[in-house]
């Protein structure tokens, strides 16, 4: 059916501002999702300050630091890719996104080795050594695995999002004039980064 009259405020036309607003609202929900975990962390840390300190000594600060640098760098490259496409340089934009995805992979690989080391030391819930830990330390590791695990899932989702966007840039459906989806993927990636910026000191640095 041919539709002759289109409203000026139609919901079917491209609206970058609506898309951006929607993305920001979604990011609020993500922050609150982790917010619930931060509350749990706060309560249990204040109840078991010494045990949390003891348990945190098991983490490898170096690996955490490298991962922080990797994520911050990837946040920078995704921001640069947005500027690149706004200036009309899709090829550069694609390259920068590729670096971002590469950084995400590096982050996950380091994370894999970190978790692997913990499991090797018997620190996974239910293992023998884990059972010998104090209650507070057990809670610390529950939170550590739950929060970094959930964050890791977000890294994977963000990677997929960016790969989808890269595909669209290749096809030309994301371009100089129409690039809100790329910006949204960038916003999401910054969120992933932001949450890590909080997780890192909470688990690795506080003494």
């Amino acid at each position, binding site marked *: 059916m041919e539709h002759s009259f289109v409203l000026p405020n*139609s919901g079917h036309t491209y609206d970058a501002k609506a898309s951006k607003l929607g993305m920001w609202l979604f990011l609020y929900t993500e922050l609150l999702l982790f917010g*619930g975990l931060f509350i*749990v962390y706060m309560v249990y840390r204040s109840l078991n300050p010494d045990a949390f300190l003891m348990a945190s000594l098991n983490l490898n600060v170096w690996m955490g630091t490298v991962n922080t640098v990797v994520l911050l760098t990837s946040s920078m490259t995704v921001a640069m890719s947005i500027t690149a496409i706004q200036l009309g340089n899709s090829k550069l934009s694609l390259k920068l996104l590729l670096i971002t995805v590469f950084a995400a992979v590096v982050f996950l690989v380091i994370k894999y080795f970190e978790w692997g080391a913990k499991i090797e030391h018997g620190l996974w819930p239910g293992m023998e050594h884990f059972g010998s830990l104090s209650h507070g330390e057990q809670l610390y590791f529950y939170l550590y695995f739950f929060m970094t695990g959930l964050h890791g899932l977000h890294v994977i989702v963000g990677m997929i999002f960016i790969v989808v966007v890269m595909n669209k840039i290749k096809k030309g459906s994301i371009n100089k004039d129409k690039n809100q989806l790329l910006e949204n993927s960038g916003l999401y990636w910054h969120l992933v980064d932001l949450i890590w910026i909080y997780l890192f000191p909470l688990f690795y640095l506080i003494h």
Partner: protein
Amino acid sequence: MTDSSVSQPNFFEVKKGLFSWIFSLDHKRIGLLYLYSVGSFFLVGAALGVLMRLELFNPGADLIEAKTYNQVFTLHGVIMIFLFIIPSIPAVFGNFFLPIMLGTDDVAFPRLNLLSWWLYVLGALFALSTLVFGDGPADTGWTFYAPYSVKTGTNVSMSVLAAFILGFSSILTGLNFIVTIHRLRAPGMGFNQMPLFAWALYATSWIQLLATPIIGITLLMIVAERMLGIGLFDPSIGGDPILYQHLFWIYSHPAVYIMALPAMGIVSEIIPTFAQRTIFGYKAIAYSSLAIAFVGYFVWGHHMFTSGMSGPAAYIFSILTFFVAIPTSIKVFNWLATMYKGSINVQVPLLYAVAFIFNFLIGGLTGLVVGALAADVHLHDTYFVVGHFHYVMFGGTGFAFFGALHYWYPKIWGKMYNKLIANIAFAILFIGFNTLYFPMLILGIKGMPRRYYDYLPEFHTLNQISTVGSWILIIGLLLMIFNLFKGYFSKQKAPANPWNGITLEWQTQSPPTLYNFDKAPELVEGGPYNYPNAMKG
């Protein structure tokens, strides 16, 4: 009705077939998909409710035994809350009418809208799968309190995952509505020229967005504990079940306003139309929705007065609870003032709206009774609480839902139901409802605890009255549904504007065309309810 408006095919006729529905991006079709699914689950939930009332007709386990009873009330709660009330008005009537009332052709993100319906279906499948897989449906109550929810052998994980998925669906609907309201209002329609239903949905959507993630993560923690052994609420290693309760109610109390605010929006539409005059206190009603949403965020502790809480915290939660009554009564007084000296046309939708006020008043005032610290210690976990929230949820939101169904019925299907039968069905429903739930308030004051299949002999009579009430209620419900179906098959077409309403949906043809408007909608000067022929003074 002019003939030119009939030239376009309506949204039913544009495409046919199952796939044109379940993959439709049209907000009206998605609204109806929600109506059919939400309505079906309401009937399942209601049947479970009747089953419980039958068991309680006599003391002792004469129909179902204790464990089954626990599973039945849990499933009743999960279905009614997550599958019926939360999506009911926003997802059905919000989807169908919000874009039309704002004068646009769709929501801001049509594909996201379809996704949220599919998530709803997925969540429903998860919830129902507990009937088939594992050791039966959860028996924890819909609150899934730890540590019992972690220890019980029943299939809690699936129910909890269902609630998680349904929460996601609810978030996406809320997000969609907020963006729609911000970006797609008709040219010239400022926030203060929006219909009040849109205001109510706006406030609701913010709660959906800002409260739901908290329960999402809390429920994931339950799943992690059951499946991975990550025992964050396990008291044996110092985990805190009270913390679970806090996190649960941080969402679930605001969720009460997700259920109530859209209903208030419906009432704010129905009353000016049938009083044929401007709504009294437009801004007061609009902003009180936001006030309820805001204050409602900080009162969750009143569910936990007996769980162990410091004195000062309890006082503060109690006082804040009383604050919620203020914006709520502002609305009630404004509705009454709107009807005062209006040219009232008593039709079925208005009856439902007035019944909403009556029931909600009882529900609201009993809410203050349990919100008071001293009274709550006596009444906590008794039938008084069950009576109270059914007055708010069913007597309030449920009745507003039926009212909306009767109000917009001619617009959605272009047909009219039999008004006499609709009136009779309403009367039976109203009487049945009050016979069913009022005795519960008395039983609670007398000390009958909730969530038991059994009771002491002295509660026998009142329980029998209540059960008889459930039969009356079901008769009224079936008659109402029968009448609505019958209307659909009647040959007589309804006029485009049978109630002489002036909000934008009444400017479209019935049923609306695919893109709602074939010319720019004309806004009423001086606000959405400025009736031109209303008596002055």
